[in-house]
C-alpha cells in the first residue's frame, strides 16, 4: 500500500455514550489518529443503514457505529433495535460482496475514553494495512 494512504473513517456515534467518550478522550489528551470523522446522532437506533452506505459512497474507507452498552441506552432499547438490524444488515452486505470487515460496531460508554482511543487506533492501522476501499469508490464514480 502506498505510504501516504491515510484511511478515511466515518464514525456514527450516539450522543449519550460514545460521543462523550470521544469528548473525554480529548479532554484527557488521549492521542488517537486524526483519521476519524465523528458524526453525532441521538442514538444508535437512529443510525439508518443508508448512512453507512452514504459514507462509503462519499469515500469512506471504513465506517464505525458506536453507542451505549446494552441496558444503558438513553432511550432504553434503541441499541437493542439497532443490534438486531445490524445482524441482518451484515448478511445482506455479505451477499452483495460489500467488505463487512470495514464496518465496525461497538459499545463504548461515556467513561470508556481509553476504549475509544484503542479502537480507533487499531481500526486505523488495520485499514491502513488493507488500503483504500477502491472497489466501492469505483462504483461511486462510475456514471453508467
Amino acid at each position, binding site marked *: 500500500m502506498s505510504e501516504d494512504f491515510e484511511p478515511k473513517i466515518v464514525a456514527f456515534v450516539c450522543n449519550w455514550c460514545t460521543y462523550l467518550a470521544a469528548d473525554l478522550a480529548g479532554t484527557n489528551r488521549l492521542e488517537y489518529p486524526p483519521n476519524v470523522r465523528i458524526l453525532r446522532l441521538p442514538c444508535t437506533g437512529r443510525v439508518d443503514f443508508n448512512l453507512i452506505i452514504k459514507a462509503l*459512497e462519499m469515500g469512506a474507507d471504513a465506517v464505525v457505529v458506536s453507542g451505549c452498552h446494552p441496558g444503558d441506552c438513553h432511550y432504553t432499547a434503541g441499541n437493542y433495535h439497532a443490534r438486531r438490524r*445490524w*445482524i*441482518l444488515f451484515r448478511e445482506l452486505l455479505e451477499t452483495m460482496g460489500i*467488505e463487512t470487515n470495514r464496518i465496525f*460496531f461497538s459499545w463504548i460508554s461515556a467513561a470508556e475514553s481509553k476504549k475509544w482511543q484503542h479502537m480507533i487506533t487499531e481500526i486505523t492501522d488495520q485499514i491502513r494495512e488493507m488500503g483504500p476501499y477502491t472497489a466501492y469508490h469505483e*462504483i461511486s464514480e462510475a456514471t*453508467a
Partner: protein
Amino acid sequence: MTGQLRERCRRLLQDGAVQVVIGYGVSTSDGMPHPIFVRRPDDVDKLIWNEQCMANLTTYLTRDAVKALGKPAIVVKGCDARALVVLEQECQIDRSAMHVIGMACAGVGSPRAPKCASCDVHVPAAADEVIGEAPAQTGPADPPYAELEEFLQKSPAERFAYWREEAARCIRCYACREVCPTCYCPRCIVDKNRPACLDTSATVKANFAWHVTRAFHQAGRCTGCGECTRVCPVGINMRLLNQSLARAADEHFGYRAGTNRETPPIIGAYGLEDKESFIR
C-alpha cells in the same frame, strides 16, 4: 378448479358477501392470466385459474382505488397468502373484512418459478376456503436457500462484481417495488426529495444504494413470493438479496415472515440475547 372458483365467486357476489373479486383473468393481448376485478355475478366467467397465475394479488389490498370498491374476495396461492399475515401484523389490512379464497397449487410458471421447488405451502394456510386438493406427487421440498448458498460459494470480490453488473442494468422503473405486497409505503424513501435521501439517477452508485434499501426494507418481511424478480424488465435477481435476509431471519431468530401472525415481527422487536459476537 376454474369452474368451482367461478361458482363460489358468483355466489359470493350474488349474496352480497363481497363487492369485488380480485382474481385472475385471461388477457386479450398475450393470453396469460393477469389481475382482474370482478364486480358483477355475470362477469365471473372471466375468472380463471391455471399454472400461469403468477401475480401475487395481495399487493392490491393496500391500494386506495381497490379499497374503494368495497369488501373484496381475493384469490391466493399458498405463497401469496403469507403476505396477508405480514399485512395483518403490520395493521395494513383488516383480515376479517375480506374473504380469502385459497387455491391448492402444485407450482406455477413454465419453466416452474424458482420458489416452487422449495414450496411448503401447496395448500394455502389461513384461507377462508380452499379450492382444489393438495397436489399428490409433490416430492420433498428443496432446501429453501439453495440458490443463495450456491451464490455464496463465490468470493466476496466476485459477488461484488456480480452485483456491480446487475446494478448497472437497473433502470429504476420500480416495478419491483410496486408489485411487492409489502412495499406499500405511500411515499417511498427514494421518492422523498425535500431533501433527497437516495439519488434517483440510475448510476451504479445510486442503484447499489437503491438495491440495499429495497432489500433491507423487506428484512424479516419479504415472504419470498418472487414477484420483484419476475417483473424486473432487465432480469435483476433480487431473489438472492431477499433470500439472504430471509435466511438470516431464520437462522438468527427462527423467524419466517408470514408464517405465524402471533410471533412479533422481528424488526419491530428485539431480544436481550441477540447475537453480538461482531460488536466490540
